[in-house]
């Protein structure tokens, strides 16, 4: 059944070297439309490096990344955002001195664009676009229960709310694929539970694919439809949560022999 779904992201034989060090090698990864996929592996396995290659923070040394049918070779970070990949960061990266609302509004940068000149002259196009941005941004904030904090500075938000704001900002770019880098880091079991519901509802409401890196196995096994396991920069296994759970190689990588 999964084979019938449209592949949104196809990564073939992906690899990157930093000097003499091969951080990731011959990785194959497919993310289908509207699915929740997981990328797991022990510390230092190269998971975040994969995210950085997918968003072109790093240009891969080998292999191809096909996104939405397009080869992404030599595309910039900005190009990837325009193409429809949005991400969050392992160590939260918000615009700390902007308000919560402005953080989300910043995400509309390319979606509702107008020139600086029309902003300075306050032309009708400015008013029209800003009205749309305001409305959509408030909608996003209410989805992530941040409406009441809209005028708070992002740096003054509690940790959990900062994580939610980062996801809201990423969604403001209207992505087709959302990359979540350890969304449950630092959350207690109850917050993680809420996060799982939230990720599912984001996928359903925005009809997007989600690829997430996570150490919390309960979360990964609970919401991911397919999981890819990385170890020492190499792909160790790929399959459904059940297959991964019973895979002897994965157990060995995590628990040792």
């Amino acid at each position, binding site marked *: 059944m999964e084979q019938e779904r449209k592949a949104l992201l196809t990564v073939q034989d992906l690899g990157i070297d930093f000097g003499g060090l091969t951080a990731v090698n011959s990785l194959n990864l497919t993310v289908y439309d509207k699915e929740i996929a997981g990328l797991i592996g022990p510390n230092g396995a190269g998971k975040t490096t994969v995210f950085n290659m997918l968003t072109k923070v790093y240009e891969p040394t080998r292999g191809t990344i096909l996104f939405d049918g397009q080869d992404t070779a030599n595309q910039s970070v900005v190009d990837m*955002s325009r193409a429809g990949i949005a991400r969050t960061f392992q160590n939260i990266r918000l*615009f700390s001195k902007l308000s919560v609302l402005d953080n989300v509004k910043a995400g509309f940068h390319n979606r509702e664009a107008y020139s600086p000149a029309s*902003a300075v002259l306050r032309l009708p196009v400015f008013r029209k676009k800003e009205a749309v941005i305001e409305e959509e941004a408030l909608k996003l904030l209410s989805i992530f229960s941040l409406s009441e904090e809209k005028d708070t500075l992002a740096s003054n938000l509690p940790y959990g709310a900062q994580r939610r704001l980062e996801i809201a900002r990423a969604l403001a770019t209207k992505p087709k694929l959302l990359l979540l880098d350890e969304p449950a880091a630092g959350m207690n079991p109850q917050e993680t539970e809420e996060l799982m519901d939230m990720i599912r509802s984001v996928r359903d409401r925005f009809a997007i694919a989600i690829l997430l890196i996570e150490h919390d196995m309960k979360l990964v096994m609970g919401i991911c439809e397919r999981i890819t396991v990385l170890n020492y920069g190499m792909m160790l296994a790929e399959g459904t949560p059940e297959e991964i759970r019973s895979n002897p190689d994965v157990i060995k990588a995590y628990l040792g022999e």
Partner: protein
Amino acid sequence: MKKKNPFGRILERDQGRRALSFILITALYLIMEAMMRSGNLSSLFQSLLVPVCCYIVAAIGLNLNVGVSGELNLGQAGFMSVGAFTAVCVSGYLSASVPSGILRLVLAILAGILSAALFGIIIGIPVLKLQGDYLAIVTLAFGQIIKSLITNMYLGFDENGIQFSFVENKTSLAPGGKMLLNGPMGATGTEKISNFTAGFILIVLSLLVVYNLIYSRSGRAIQACRDNRIAAESIGINITSTKLLAFTVSSSLAGAAGALYGLNYSTLVPAKFDFNTSILILVYVVLGGLGNMTGTMAATIILVLLPELLRSMQDYRMLIYAIVLILIMILTNNDTVRTNMTRVKNRIFAKKEGRA
């Protein structure tokens, strides 16, 4: 009861603070005009009005670059210099063909803005691709280079056209010709067409430009790049062009300020716009508060006037100036003072809202 905001929703945030800067500067202008008309203003004070306006405009521009965009610029005086000498030359060249002083002033200021913006773009494109303090280093050098360049420029015109020479004066003008730039002597014989009202209008316009830019898509992008480059790029913001926008607007405002300044004196030497001037403008910005335009204006007014008002103290003048600087630094960075200031502000604004 509540009136519909005529500016749309985006202007609601910080509206009070922004309105305050316009109200304060208009009030100051009206008071000064009234005092000038009734003859209650000393000639020293009168002579300072236009320079204060110029420094305010340059400082507002610099605050956009340093406070909002977070890039250090140590050459704002260099951009003022470019604007000033361009404006003086344009005004001198047009003196016969455009007799109206106001029109010539407008044209000269526009020329000053354009030339300063051009230099801003030329410097900004390569430098703003880099991360770190490179802009500070390059603008510092730019300020020095511009000073040396203009010190060595000879430019004149007569009925046969424009003559230009570098390092040595090789121009030989026909009778009736006019020198626009005279090497180290700078521009001489400039017709003074700047006035206080033009300065006030320029301040209001630069406030409008800067505020409208900050509270817009571009302003959010500029601040996003300042707060977190990586995240800004990840949501599709082009960092170089965003920072370039802030830097170019900042340089253009310095160009406008320089143009107004240059046309306020009959003689203008290139050495006027040296490194010290750049640092002074930076001091106005830092003491006024990064990103705080009202504070910048207040700091500029106080710090330009202070040395002049203290002239009677003679030797102690700079000592008192330094003490005032230190006091402002301590007070604006003191938590207790800040909390009390916020409390006072909140009370004022709460009252206003209560009445309305």
